[in-house]
């Protein structure tokens, strides 16, 4: 299972400039309900987000969420910083 901290420090209650998307939050899928999913950030905070852009999601997948919408599925590049 991917470790969310590998994908940044932002959390669901992060403050800051949101419009540029730099505070997009890495989260893990807890429950899938149609086009929405319950997700959890690295601190355990939960939120309901739209996952319309992903058809093959499963519980445990890691996503990047921006403005209540999942925009990327996180991958494991298989290496750490050199």
């Amino acid at each position, binding site marked *: 299972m991917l*470790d969310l901290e590998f994908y*940044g420090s932002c959390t669901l209650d992060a403050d800051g400039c949101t419009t*540029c*998307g730099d505070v997009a939050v890495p989260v893990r899928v807890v429950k899938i309900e149609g086009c929405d999913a319950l997700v959890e950030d690295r601190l355990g905070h939960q939120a309901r987000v739209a996952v319309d852009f992903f058809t093959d999601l499963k519980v445990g997948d890691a996503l990047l969420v921006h403005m209540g919408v999942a925009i*990327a599925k996180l991958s494991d590049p298989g290496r750490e910083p050199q």
Partner: protein
Amino acid sequence: MKYVDEFRDPKLIEKTAEEIRRLADPKRHYRIMEVCGGHTHSIYRFGLQDLLPENLELVHGPGCPVCVLPMGRVDDGLKLAQDPQIILTAFGDMMRVPGQMGTPLEMKAKGADIRMVYSPLDALKLAQKNPERQVVFFAIGFETTAPSTALTLKRAQQMGIPNFSVFCNHVTIVPAMRAILDSPDMRLDGFVGPGHVSTVIGCRPYEFVAREYARPVVVSGFEPLDLLQSLVMLLRQINQGQARVENQYERVVPWEGNPAALAALAEVFELRPYFEWRGLGFISQSALKLRPEYAPWDAEARFEVAGVRVTDPKAAQCGEVLKGVLKPPQCKLFGKECTPEKPVGALMVSSEGACAAYYNYVHRAEPVSGD
């Protein structure tokens, strides 16, 4: 110590900074633009500039949507909010952006119904809860944010919600980069490419920079080591006379982007023939508007939008800073008439703006003179 800590590990950072100093040829000067405001913010926040050799100059780009929105568009939104039938909704960081009429927060204090939302989906829910009112979402942002607006519009159409609409101010990053590359002042050697915009559009759209302008692009993450690694990758290319697009942020950015999000953008939006950017002027095909099929949810089609044009104060030299001709403190207004508390120019407005970042992390740290 794992993951985020590793991207901030002082030893790894020093080792990478040393590699940058080794790669930077003392006989030449390197000018590299970080396109994204979040990168500018990280560079100042973590003091990365201090680790770099003097002949490696970072130039701050146009990648903050709040900064590049012309004041007239803010006033257009505020005029909509003067209609008592309308609830204007906006992201939190838009609430303090000044138009000529004031900021959304000031207008709210005067009685306009302006509400902060976290997501356009929240604005849609607000419309469902208030069927007797019109809810307008002030949409702003690059390709990171535009998919959430597109998805919301698709849901509004599917659910047939008649009292929701979008005042669209979405812009696209590639035409802005092209405008900078075409500028006669352009003296850049390479680009640190935007991280989260690229989760949506992928890396391919930057290939024209390498192909037509012979400049490398490295898409980067936002942690200190992400940025330093990206600079290493850029210096290697520049020194070898190469120009390619590389992806440092592979753990988040797929090379092809997000096809479903791109399809939603294509379904809902089309390009405007031109759009005005603060500091950069009119750029052709650089912004999005709703397609005719979505006209029932297009605030510009449904309501009278004044199309206000407000000229920025001539003394503010935002354009020169955006193109990397001037550094923030070289602007005549910086830190005097123009501060984050009372911004005059575009780049002081948002916390991600180059001038605001410089003001908060560098200017305030400088010793105060005795006079």
